[in-house]
């Protein structure tokens, strides 16, 4: 845990041009970066073209935490080690207050950088956000364009509504009947 004399630093540039300097171990949490670093791109500034600075900050926070947990895992009594429950709680706290657009960007970033743990947190978060929601609510949340014609939507609705679905957001758009 003591400050080692020289830590290799890596520089990352977000899509909006901000440069972040992080320890190599932190960057290597991202499998994509790990591969790049091992293929010797050491001194260059690595461009993360699809991730904006605020998102990259969050991603780096996540990676730093992962390094913190794993760094002393070899020692017998690791104070940073978490139980399953603590891990869950931490994950929830980490994703707390993340809105739908940030969540989308986080999913894209963790997918691109190949950070499985963060991707899972994002997936969990999104599951909890769309669970029980009506189609229109989901579209609004995640900016999904409804590309069904009224007839197509009615058709899917009919196939799946069974006898019970009562959708307050659904207004019959077609005038059949």
């Amino acid at each position, binding site marked *: 845990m003591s400050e080692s004399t020289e830590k290799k630093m890596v520089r990352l540039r977000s899509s909006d041009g901000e440069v972040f300097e992080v320890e190599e171990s932190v960057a290597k949490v991202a499998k994509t970066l790990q591969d790049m670093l091992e293929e010797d791109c050491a001194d260059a500034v690595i461009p993360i073209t699809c991730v904006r600075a605020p998102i990259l900050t969050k991603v780096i926070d996540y990676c730093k935490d992962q390094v913190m947990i794993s760094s002393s895992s070899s020692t017998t009594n690791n104070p940073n080690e978490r139980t399953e429950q603590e891990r869950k709680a931490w994950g929830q706290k980490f994703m707390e207050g993340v809105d739908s657009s940030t969540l989308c960007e986080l999913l894209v970033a963790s997918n691109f950088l190949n950070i499985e743990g963060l991707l899972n947190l994002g997936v969990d978060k999104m599951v909890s956000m769309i669970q029980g929601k009506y189609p229109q609510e989901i579209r609004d949340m995640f900016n999904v364009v409804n590309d069904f014609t009224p007839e197509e*939507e009615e058709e899917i609705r009919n196939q*799946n509504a069974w006898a019970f679905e009562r959708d307050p957001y659904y207004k019959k758009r077609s005038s059949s009947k």
Partner: protein
Amino acid sequence: MDAIPEDALMEILLRVSKKSRCRCKRVSKEWLNLIISAKSSPLYSSSTTTTTWGLVFKQLDGSMTFCRLDEQGRLTVDDSLLFSYAEDSRSPYTIGSCNGLLYFCGSVGRDLGFKIRYFLDNPVTKQSSMLPELPILEDKPDLRPAGLGLTFDDDDIDASNINNWKLVAFLQDHPNPRPSIKSRGLTISVFDSRRWAWKKTRPARFTDDSDPLAIALPFPPAHLEFSVLIKLPDVDNWDKEGVLWKSEGGCLNYCHVCFKQGLCIWVLKKEDSSADDHIIYWWHKTYSVSMDDLMSMLSSSKDALNRFCPMICPYAVNEELSLL
């Protein structure tokens, strides 16, 4: 906003509840196509195969309570369905299932004058629906259901369209011992889900002497083929007080009930052996529960033990419906 990576979205759609997934189909074409293609995912099959059993318990005050028992052994009481104890002690009865839906009929409420009504239960959405009253023929006020069948329209473009179903009710004059089939005076009435109404009743006509009510029982306990083929599961020397057979979702369900000991549900699984053409059957013990546990789950007193009603029906959920 960036589009959510497809793999992540697929994972998300596999993880939400079935009902939510069904709603997600309407979000956009991309989402719909993902859900359709999700069916071939190995994650999909493991996450959506559900079997739920419908149980009806007779309470001390004579009312009937409807419960659902899932594969994890969770028992949920549906308070919205309270049957009355009618003079016909078998009510609710004629329980069956098709395409994952459970159907049954029962007498309801004093205020409804102990009328026999039909119900459909969807184990996935955990909702039941009471169908409108059967039309009664003017000259045959005693007409009552003797057999019931749930069918799904195959002639539809989309055969899996679970919104199109029909309930076929065979009605007979009551009381009626079992005279020959021709003189039994059966009447048929069909309920159409799309019109949400019963069609007019009409007398049943049979082309031969086959008994439609006998056919309605898929596997009577002493079914010759199966009693020879398959040994019954060993239920720890329980006294047999009630057994129920039902084939659904390609599986034969066997439910064993002992009112002192509890209930035990077995499912007969079939496996096509790749080595030769032999088909292997084996009993898969799905769920068993002691009567004490059952009563505590129902928060019913132990005195109710003797009045436990043996109405148990297993029903399986087919793949299409499990998307609901």
